[in-house]
């Protein structure tokens, strides 16, 4: 098997150029590529287009890259947890393209799966459908959505092996599997990196073919946005 291991996040993202299009896995702060985000902030690349379901919070996740003005455009479904985001959007520093969450997920999957466009009912009759082709199938209206792809996809998994196979944990899976398929270069950071052969082939969530670089991350904070407990 091909060994895809790189040393750390810095090595993994070092060739990401200014104005690149990135996909970043995660839902809220759950399952985000924490190490890669830190390395991007350190690297200081600018003009990034970030495809990510959310935009982090003010002091964590993609919020860290917003603070340093590295993001030119966000493509997301929900960006409501971030005051700095709001400020940059209102001041015109930041562009935002809001996409229904299911369409975002499916457009990313389509990007990885070689499907340039597909019909979905989401957004029909709303402003999301403006300028888009619509069509009726079996009495219901749909609109045509196109694939999304990225120069680099940055994903976070629970376990990975040296061949690039990934296993996610809990709801930290979310957008990571599709994004792993839709990057020209996909970088995976994992909590535990094991030699090829240690993961059960039957239980792999992301086959190694989609992953070009992998490393074991460190110091995961895994912040919780809404800590809700049963007393």
């Amino acid at each position, binding site marked *: 098997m091909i060994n895809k291991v790189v040393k750390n996040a810095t090595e993994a993202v070092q060739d990401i150029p200014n104005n690149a299009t990135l996909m970043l896995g995660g839902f809220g702060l*759950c399952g985000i590529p924490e190490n890669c985000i830190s390395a991007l902030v350190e690297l200081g690349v600018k003009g990034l287009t970030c495809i990510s379901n959310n935009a982090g919070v003010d002091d964590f996740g993609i919020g860290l890259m917003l603070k340093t003005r590295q993001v030119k455009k966000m493509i997301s*479904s929900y960006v409501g947890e971030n005051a700095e985001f709001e400020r940059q959007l209102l001041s015109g520093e930041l562009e935002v393209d809001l996409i*229904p*969450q299911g369409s975002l997920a499916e457009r990313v*999957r389509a990007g990885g799966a070689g499907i340039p466009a597909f019909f979905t009912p989401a957004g029909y*009759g709303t402003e999301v459908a403006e300028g888009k082709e619509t069509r009726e199938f079996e009495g219901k209206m749909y609109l045509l959505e196109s694939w999304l792809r990225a120069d680099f996809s940055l994903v976070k998994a629970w376990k990975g092996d040296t061949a690039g196979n990934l296993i996610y944990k809990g709801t930290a899976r979310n957008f990571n599997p599709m994004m792993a398929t839709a990057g020209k270069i996909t970088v995976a950071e994992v909590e535990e990196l094991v030699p090829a052969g240690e993961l059960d082939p039957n239980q792999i969530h992301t086959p190694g073919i989609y992953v070009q670089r992998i490393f074991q991350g460190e110091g995961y904070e895994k912040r919780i946005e809404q800590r*809700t407990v*049963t007393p």
Partner: protein
Amino acid sequence: MLDKIGIAKRIAQEIRDGYYINLGIGIPTLVANYIPDNLNIVLQSENGLLGIGPFPKEQDVDADLINAGKQTISMLNGSSLFSSAESFAMIRGGHVDLTILGAMEVSENGDIANWKIPGKMVKGMGGAMDLVASADNIIVAMQHKSRSGASKLLKECTLPITGINCVNKIVTDMAVLDVLSEGGFKLLERAPGVSVQEIKDSTEGTLIVEGEIPEMKID
């Protein structure tokens, strides 16, 4: 007039055995607390989980296990985890039996507006547009009137809409209403102490009242 818990309790009565259900944020989330124990239902979380359990005990909190409202949760026996693409495949494919969500406005032809207020910061539609465009069975939980007293059950939505012709039923603090496929709000039940006239006065869209309108039964 019902409070939020009353609305949640009344909506819980709409749930049937075997349902897979997606609950939106706000009042819909409260519905989970009032589902009769004898019903076997499964709650779907669009960030990738079937089988949402109660909030975890403090020592069981797991940052990798949250619901679509980003709250820490637990899983029940028989749960399954999956990607966002699979989750919305499930929603779009019509596999979820019931979707319960909040709204800012509903029109008499079943349009719903719940994602954007002009002039206010746009937060995004999240999964709402996929949910309303895909589900066959949508119940809206909402206040009948705005704080300023304006009806939120309208002839036409004034806010940017989330989806068209999609709402089947509305439970408000004042009433239970069906949205007819041919258009119009059909009054089914009154909240305790609320008269048909009060509901008429609070509904800008076409209200259809046939026969005696019973009062809701809420425990």
